[in-house]
């Protein structure tokens, strides 16, 4: 029993361990978490309302499970999104940009400044409502997936300009 607990604890701690990085990761804006929560609320509020309406219309004990299930899903989603929000991070090093993300599948991407071909700054409706933007980097490789969401609009523009400047200085193309 004790052994099982130790093994499980060890496994969990191993799963939660973050990669050691030779640089400090910068987190995305806390407003990004507000934006994500807003999206969760916008998705789950009507669902929960519908479930409550069904329960009210049909009465009966068994139907209580429906809104309860929806609420449980919402909480689960909330927990997952919280975890995801906390894993986002980026670090600007001397020669490359490091982006970290993912809760279940943890990913760390290293993109040299000289390889950046295109830098996108996008902002969806929810992002705009919170004054946020996403910075996306493209290289000549299709597999490169460096995306940093949830930056303050001004920060995103600054980051883009900085990246563009170093990118130009170090451009090596293909």
């Amino acid at each position: 029993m004790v052994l099982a607990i130790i093994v499980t604890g060890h496994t969990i701690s191993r799963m939660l361990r973050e990669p050691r990085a030779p640089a400090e990761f910068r987190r995305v804006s806390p407003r990004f978490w507000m934006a994500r929560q807003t999206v969760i609320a916008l998705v789950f509020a009507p669902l929960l309302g519908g479930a409550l309406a069904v329960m009210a219309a049909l009465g009966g004990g068994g139907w209580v499970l429906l809104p309860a299930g929806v609420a449980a899903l919402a909480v689960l989603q909330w927990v997952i999104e919280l975890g995801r929000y906390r894993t986002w991070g980026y670090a600007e090093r001397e020669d490359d940009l490091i982006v970290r993300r993912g809760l279940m599948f943890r990913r760390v991407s290293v993109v040299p400044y000289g390889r950046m071909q295109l830098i996108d700054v996008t902002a969806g409706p929810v992002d705009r409502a919170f004054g946020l933007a996403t910075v996306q980097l493209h290289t000549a490789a299709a597999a490169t997936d460096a995306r940093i969401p949830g930056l303050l609009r001004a920060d995103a523009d600054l980051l883009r300009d900085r990246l563009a400047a170093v990118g130009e200085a170090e451009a090596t193309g293909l």
Partner: protein
Amino acid sequence: MSDAALPVGTSWRRLHPLSPLVRFARIVVGLIVVAVPTLEAARGGAAGRGRSLTTSLIVWAALLGLSMIGGVVSWLVTRWRIGDGDLQIETGLIRRQSIRIPLARIQAVDIVAPLLGRILGLAEVRVVSAGRGGEHGRLAYLTAAEATAARARLLALAHGLAAETPEPPAQPLAVVDNLRLVLALTLRAGIAVPLLLMIAAAVVLIVAPRAGAIVLSTCLPILFTSAVTIARTFNEEFEFSVSEAGDGLRLDRGLLQRRHETIPFGRIQALRVVQPLLWRPAGWLRLEVDVARQHGAQQSRDDPQRVARTLVPVAPRAEVLALLGRVFAEAGVEQPPGAKPPRRAMLKAPLSYHFLAAWHGARYACARTGRLQAATVVVPLHKVQSVRLKRGPVQRMLGLASVHVDTAGQRWQASMRCRDEGEAEAWLWDISAKARLARRHSSPGSRQRAAPPGVAGPVIA
């Protein structure tokens, strides 16, 4: 090579007068293929009425005639010249099109001779240029001698040499034996498995005719498609030879349609050594090449931007490794000790663990994967676009992680799967650092021609 035949100055030249014939032979063949069954149907359906048959005959003949006329007109209005600084092609009757391909951006000049063209002594010159979207530099057709001369001149000018410089001599590296090619193609699983099934079916047929017939009839179509694939590959890779010239690798290949292609060294993003299961006893290997992605260009069969993908269709191990060494100097494809992932990776990748391996040196990163066929991808570190570390839930439970090394190629990346977690992290930083050094040291202009400005500069949104 007569220089007088190709003045570089202002004189415009037509393509060869027989060009429309060759160019539209394909269309004619296509038309006949479509028309004959239709006509057959018309004759069968309208047993008594000869009229509909005549009408459709006239329609088809008219289509044929139109395409011929179209071809002649297109030949009449097409002219080309090598001006100062660019290759100029003007074409089109109604929609005039003027194509200018800057000589400095030319990456390769290929010569393709289709069957009919070879009979008539004609060949097509295809100009592969750097940049987005494909500028279609096709001169179809010139006489074989003209094509070689034009090619030599374009290459000389593209490299900033005097126009009269002859084509750099190519040093032969490998020639593929045709008999071995047939054997090797047959031994690839695509045909071997259906063939074995077929033999099994034949045996069953003798024992139990009913069941055997069913198995046989399901196998036949599979076998047929495999046979077609083999025939096509054989047609493409017949008389395959690789040679090395100053600007890149030269490939000569083809049974019906001969191709003379160049893969510029600078465009090579990665190489891959493949060994299909059934080649293992013979010790044969296949060497494939990955080149930079063309933005927005479709990789169609006739696309002049399309570049060969096979460097050597089949060759003994030593030969393949020697060629690999020519292209990527000092790339060690022998796995050093410690290249295998830890044993616990067997739980995550039970079917491919036996082949999994990865290692890297100062200039190259290598990763081997595969279940039945072993495939080793070799990526030169100065071509690395990004390095990624990935840990899935199962991998995290086992303390494993994968490292992917991306290039601008369109086919593979070096996937170092299921390494020990700590090792993978160390490699992530290590490979990034080494790639940075490799980029600094790979001087443009030596062997790697610098990409022209259009492709190189980052585009800022």
